[in-house]
């Protein structure tokens, strides 16, 4: 009984320390964890995989640095998938903070593909294979305006080029030429894509969201409003597994590498929750 009493009075700083150790040790001594791909991520993968040749994928990077550990691996995995399958890609951000993150992801993934390319046809070329639309004022305005004309709303791209001069944008006029929109967001943005772009123009939407908002987004998958759903680091790891298994993409799997640390941290949390509850019930019985 005394042990339980001591355990229920552990200083919070000791709990933080134990949690820190539980996270650091698996990062220092990595042990690969088998990833089982769940239907929501599988659906997302095939929704992108089946985009017809004449249509494009829009990747909406809408997360700030604080949620990047969960959402960055999703962005990298989706871009690798699209470029490997030669799917045309448009990248944009509805807010300004994610622009740098989107640019980093594009630069790194394009460099990976181009370093292995033998010919111009194998390479990933700006304007031909992908366009970085950047950012414009007003998220809802962007969602509605792109249904009419993408180049009318994004008159210049992120780098200042006139979008109507880019070869890719001559083929991709509006949502009729878009196979799927992948919304990677730490907020409600995927829901807005459904409300404004899907509801009015029939755009297919897939969402990559943080774990904290997962329970809010599941209903949209069940109703078919989302063509797929990736949740947190776990969802990103599942997508990394899919592209490695199906497309033989051997790149760094940052989310998968983090899973052992996530597992051990959860175990620590569960143990402390159980201890706390046992202590609570013992104390209540004594009273």
């Amino acid at each position: 009984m005394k042990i339980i009493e001591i355990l229920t009075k552990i200083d919070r700083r000791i709990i933080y320390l134990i949690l820190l150790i539980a996270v650091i040790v698996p990062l220092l001594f990595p042990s690969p964890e088998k990833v089982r791909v769940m239907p929501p991520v599988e659906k997302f993968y095939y929704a992108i995989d089946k985009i017809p040749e004449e249509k494009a994928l829009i990747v909406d990077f809408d997360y700030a640095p604080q949620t990047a550990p969960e959402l960055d691996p999703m962005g990298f995995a989706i871009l690798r998938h699209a470029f490997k399958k030669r799917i045309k890609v448009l990248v944009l951000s509805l807010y300004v903070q994610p622009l740098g993150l989107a640019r980093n992801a594009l630069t790194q993934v394009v460099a990976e593909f181009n370093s292995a390319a033998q010919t111009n046809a194998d390479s990933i070329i700006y304007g031909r294979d992908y366009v970085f639309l950047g950012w414009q004022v007003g998220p809802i305005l962007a969602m509605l305006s792109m249904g009419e004309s993408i180049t009318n709303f994004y008159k210049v791209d992120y780098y200042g080029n006139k979008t109507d001069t880019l070869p890719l944008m001559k083929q991709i006029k509006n949502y009729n030429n878009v196979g799927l929109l992948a919304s990677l967001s730490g907020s409600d943005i995927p829901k807005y894509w459904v409300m404004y772009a899907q509801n009015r123009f029939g755009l297919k939407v897939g969402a990559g969201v943080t774990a904290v908002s997962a329970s809010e987004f599941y209903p949209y998958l069940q109703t078919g409003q989302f063509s797929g759903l990736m949740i947190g680091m776990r969802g990103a790891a599942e997508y990394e597994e899919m592209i490695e298994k199906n497309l033989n993409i051997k790149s760094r799997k940052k989310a998968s590498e983090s899973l052992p640390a996530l597992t051990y941290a959860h175990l620590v949390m569960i143990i402390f929750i159980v201890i706390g509850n046992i202590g609570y019930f013992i104390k209540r019985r004594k009273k």
Partner: protein
Amino acid sequence: MNISSDPWIWISALLSLAIFSFLYRDNPFYKFAEHIFVGVANGWAVTFYWHNILVPSLFDPLFRQGQILYIIPFIIGMLYLTRFIPRVSWLVRIPIGIYMGYYVGVSIPATIQALIIKQAQGTILTPENFQTWHAGNMGIVWSVILFIGVLCTLSYFYFSKEHRGILGTASRIGIIFVMIGFGAAFGYTVMARISLLIGRLQFLLGPWLGIIQ
């Protein structure tokens, strides 16, 4: 171990540690990092919006290109500032009214169609909805559970009648569904926060200290 020589990585790492120091207790390092964050974020936002919205979308067309019609949004926008002059502060209602009118007009139909009608359709017991669970014959069971869950949860939030009899039973079942929902949300929140900690530690152990890749 291959410690970084990049000063930006050092600044980022030291500020991360300063923020983490709050876990021990409030201290001057934490305060310093917090104030830097607030200052930099505000400074960055003001300059960004100035150079990317106000100048190209308003001041350039109005004052350099002479597009006189831009005077209308300029005046309406300036009315926001009347809030600081008590005598004419009522004028602030004009831009707020315009914005609210636009936003409500755009969002109400979309909300009803996408968030209410579609979501309600998802709870109806139809063969199409059974398939959405990807669970074979179990799809029917999950759909029925969802159907009961929605009805019971709604009945818990029905306060116009005392929760007795059928309504009482339904609302007691409803609270179980609500609690399961809270439990799932809490579990996911833990997962999210730990993921963020992992991300920061990967940065500290990787690019900064060079212990891991």
